[in-house]
């Protein structure tokens, strides 16, 4: 196997720069996914069909189609509609919207797992709907599903290289650019691959530890 430590060392600064971008964009995407997911699940529980059906249709469509295609749709089509985001913002939005359809499911499972008694007690002591949701239901629901949400953050991390395909300067894009200008592909791509494993594995262990503490 041909490997040059010099090339690897030369690529390291770019790798670290890309790593920072990867982590930041994943975190932002997670924020979008968590927030939007909550919006979807509340809309899906509303009594109005005009709200439920379009949202359900949208969520199903987004969840069953590739993130890649959605990303390109955002990137190439949004600007024609007059919405001009930077590539990073477009990427974060695409990532966040796609994964919000998963987090909505997760939230739904969590909310449904909250014992009916909690709802009844809240009504009995006269809490408003908002207070019931914010003070009683959501804290219990979210606590239950934090591990599942954590797993989706890791999934988002591993899907973040897709943003390189619209030119966002993450780890993969640095490797591609380095390869395109120096024709050295082995070291950069291998380092990027290993970097992902090195980040994901501890994150997965963390989520599993979280699961052990919170769910039982």
């Amino acid at each position, binding site marked *: *196997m*041909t*490997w040059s430590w010099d090339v690897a060392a030369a690529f390291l600064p770019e790798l670290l720069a890309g790593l920072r971008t990867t982590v930041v964009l994943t975190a932002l995407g997670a924020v979008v996914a968590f927030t939007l997911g909550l919006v979807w699940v509340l809309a899906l529980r509303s009594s109005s069909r005009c709200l439920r059906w379009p949202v359900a249709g949208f969520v*199903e*469509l987004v969840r*069953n*189609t*590739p*993130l*890649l*295609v*959605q990303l*390109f*749709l955002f990137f*190439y*089509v949004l600007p*024609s509609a007059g919405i001009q985001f930077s590539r990073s913002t477009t990427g974060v939005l695409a990532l966040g919207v796609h994964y919000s359809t998963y987090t909505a499911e997760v939230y739904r499972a969590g909310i449904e797992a909250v014992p009916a008694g909690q709802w009844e007690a809240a009504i009995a002591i006269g809490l408003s709907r908002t207070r019931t949701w914010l003070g009683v239901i959501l804290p219990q629901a979210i606590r239950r599903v934090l591990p599942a949400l954590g797993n989706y953050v890791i999934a988002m*991390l*591993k*899907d*973040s*290289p*897709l943003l*390189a*395909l619209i030119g966002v300067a993450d780890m*993969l894009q640095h*490797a*591609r650019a380095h*390869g395109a200008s120096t024709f050295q*592909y*082995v070291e950069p*791509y*291998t380092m*990027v*691959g290993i970097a*992902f*494993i*090195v*980040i*994901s*594995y501890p994150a*997965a262990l963390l989520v599993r530890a979280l699961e052990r503490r919170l769910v039982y």
Partner: protein
Amino acid sequence: MTTGLWIHWFLPGILITLELTVCGAALAAVIAFIAGVGRSARHPLVRFAAGLYVEVFRGTSALVLMFWLFFVVPLAFHVQLLPMWAAVLALGLSYGAYGAEVVRGAIAAVPAGQREAAIALSFTPAQQLRRVILPQALPEMIPSFTNLLIELLKGTALVSAVSVADVSFAAQLARLATGESLQIYAIVLLIYFVLAFAITRGMRVLELRTKASVGQLSTMEIAR
């Protein structure tokens, strides 16, 4: 979108997407069973090896793996993989790792009494697995496998980044040829949605069949 683009690029692209999904799923299933059974094995070395594979490939990004197989393997190992093969390998390895966890969980969910009864009846470990454990574990695996299969279908879109001519790749070409991004990507999303819908339906049929074969159908399912 012109007829020419449909005939030369989109329809063949849909076939390639289907081919990738089927072959990728087959490879992933084989790997998942081997690794899942391996993770449940008694021999610690087997468990470790299977565990290592699962942790490493659950941690890799499928897109990075694909780039690696396409660009690094030829340069570093002087061996060239046919593009379809490399794509199927990347998909199978990535999703097989998730499948292994599903298999492991389903095997663990089979009541302990079943395994004990099989031992009592002098079944060899292979026979235990094939005749008693797996048939009962199978219905348990199918809902998770359905989700993984949909994920795999969506994952096939990544091959367009390494120039395999699937339907996402056809969309890129059409964009460069016509400049009409919205129409093209909307059609492609619809194509994937229809494929995902078909897969979900098909897997549901499979689930009912496997449940029936081990007598696990609920009364509601029988009634339907």
